[in-house]
């Protein structure tokens, strides 16, 4: 019953909504195209595109209501910051055009749906009320077009017929409503195929970045702590030989070995912190970032608003995005200050690292590519923007908590 109720509400509302979106879009597009020659049209068209996103979002909720399950959205993430970057991506995105198709065909289909719903229920209820109707009208009888009801006996037949019509109206209107909603979902939600392609791409990226990370760790171990331990063992071996014959030299060798051991310890500590910092597991993202910020050579203003612990994968990805971004700031930007902002909104974690340096970050560089792969593996997005002055890195991560 609830499904029928939702389907009919959807059908009835589709008509006025379709009329409104159709009128708005046709007017806005005509105006924009017409004025395009004198440039005023271009911002109008851009505004229409933005408005279509809002309308599509509203429609997704309406379709989701009819189907009793949420309709996901899937747009391409802009590669560049700013309105122009957004527009460029939006225009190239098939999802934008599918949204527009839905918003335009909603009016004709809405009229059909509205008619089906109104006439099915109207006919059924009207027939049910036929005896009362006949009694009220009296002598000339009720004119039903093809049929004419002249006697009360004839009017009583209206009740069973009306019941049959109403019984049929339930599957008919429900089918029409769900059919229309399914068409809406096909146009408004990302296609399965696209999702599969996206998943294949991000999985390959995650595997690549993991392999690169393992290689880096192997190299660091080989060149760092391992080499130091070899030197230390050699020093100790030589000291052992000289212990009796030349105690002074032996003492110097032991002191050297002691130094190498301490340096190896400190290198191993840095390395394991880089793999996964203990404080992130123990205390979560806020304290871990505050510890990183305190170590950073460039002054960092931290603005982290988190009430609860997040899923470990989200915390780790967010942490490494910030660490890599801060390392880049310190190494390349020449900035004096930078700022880290993290906000948790419902099921998204939004993260922003900005500096006041010279800019010039290369989004295709190894570091940023690795980060993007790490973020995309979690279905997140990462964007790099030149802010004049400085660079801003924005990432958004899903966190179901």
């Amino acid at each position, binding site marked *: 019953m609830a499904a029928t109720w939702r389907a009919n509400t959807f059908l009835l509302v589709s008509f006025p909504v379709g009329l409104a979106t159709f009128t708005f879009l046709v007017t806005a597009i005509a105006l924009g195209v017409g004025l395009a020659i004198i440039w005023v049209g271009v911002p109008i068209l851009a505004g229409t595109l933005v408005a279509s996103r809002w309308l599509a979002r509203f429609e997704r909720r309406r379709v989701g209501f009819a189907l009793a399950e949420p309709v996901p959205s899937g747009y391409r993430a802009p590669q560049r910051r700013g309105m122009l970057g957004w527009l460029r991506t939006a225009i190239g995105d098939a999802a934008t055009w599918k949204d527009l198709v839905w918003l335009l065909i909603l009016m004709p289909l809405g009229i059909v749906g509205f008619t089906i719903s109104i006439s099915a229920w109207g006919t059924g209820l009207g027939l049910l009320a036929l005896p009362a109707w006949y009694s009220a009208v009296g002598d000339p009888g009720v004119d039903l077009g093809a049929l004419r009801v002249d006697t009360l006996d004839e009017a009583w037949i209206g009740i069973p017929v009306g019941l049959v019509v109403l019984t049929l109206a339930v599957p008919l209107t429900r089918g029409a409503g769900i059919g229309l909603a399914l068409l809406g979902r096909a146009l408004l939600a990302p296609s399965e195929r696209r999702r599969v392609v996206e998943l294949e791409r991000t999985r390959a990226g995650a595997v690549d970045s993991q392999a690169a990370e393992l290689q880096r760790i192997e190299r660091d171990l080989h060149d760092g702590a391992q080499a130091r331990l070899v030197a230390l063992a050699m020093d100790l071996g030589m000291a052992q030989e000289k212990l009796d014959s030349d105690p002074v030299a032996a003492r110097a060798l032991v002191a050297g070995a002691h130094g190498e051991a301490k340096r190896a310890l400190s290198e191993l*500590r840095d390395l394991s912190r880089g793999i996964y910092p*203990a*404080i992130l597991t123990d205390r979560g993202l806020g*304290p871990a970032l505050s510890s990183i*910020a305190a*170590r950073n050579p460039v002054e960092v203003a931290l603005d982290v608003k988190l009430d609860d612990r997040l899923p470990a994968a989200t915390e780790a990805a967010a942490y490494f995005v910030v660490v890599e971004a801060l390392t880049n700031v310190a190494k390349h930007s020449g900035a004096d200050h930078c700022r880290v902002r993290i906000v948790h909104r419902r099921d998204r974690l939004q993260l922003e690292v900005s500096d006041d340096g010279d800019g010039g970050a290369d989004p295709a560089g190894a570091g940023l590519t690795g980060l993007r792969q790490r973020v995309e593996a979690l279905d997140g997005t990462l964007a790099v923007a030149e802010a004049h002055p400085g660079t801003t890195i924005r990432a958004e991560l899903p966190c179901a908590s």
Partner: protein
Amino acid sequence: MRVVIAEDLTLLREGLSRLLGDRGWEIVAAVDDGPKLVQAIVEHRPDIAVVDVRLPPSFTDEGIRAAIEARERVPGTPILILSQYVEESYASDLLAGAGGGVGYLLKDRVADVRQFVESLERVAAGGTAMDPEVVAQLLGRRDNRGPLAELTPREREVLALMAEGRSNTGIGVELGISSSAIEKHVKQVFIKLDLPPSDEDHRRVLAVLAYLGS
């Protein structure tokens, strides 16, 4: 000195026992997890406990939590925490409890035996031993335009060593200058940061750390 050691890795537990045993200290208990540490402190009432941060069963900051609990059960027990990493937020937890006799050092510091034993003795006597890395983190966090910017480089060094818990004599030895010069610097630091002067080492550390951590 009677010592309790809590460390889950056998190699390090025995190493520490040997190192302290060599000095003639008595290892009254050497345990390998948090609950056993609390129990050992309650039972033996040691002069100091040397505790690894990461202990079973949770393998997170079990050591700190066990230490805090033990100090609630036997107030005033001096405790020195050793950790693979030092983090300022752990240090704040440790200092939040009342009373002196706390230390928080990187595990690596054990390699410098003489300094390590000095830190232990300081903590056992009710003093403080903060790892230079913690102090560096605290100093790194501060806005460099505040009163800290008014300190001379020498005064900054003195401030950092005070935050580690060193006495005037200790600071003098470290920097190679006379105690009276140190006293002058300390006075200047307190005036510039607007802190209440204090002769007692532990209170002084708390004031400095509170200032840096605020």
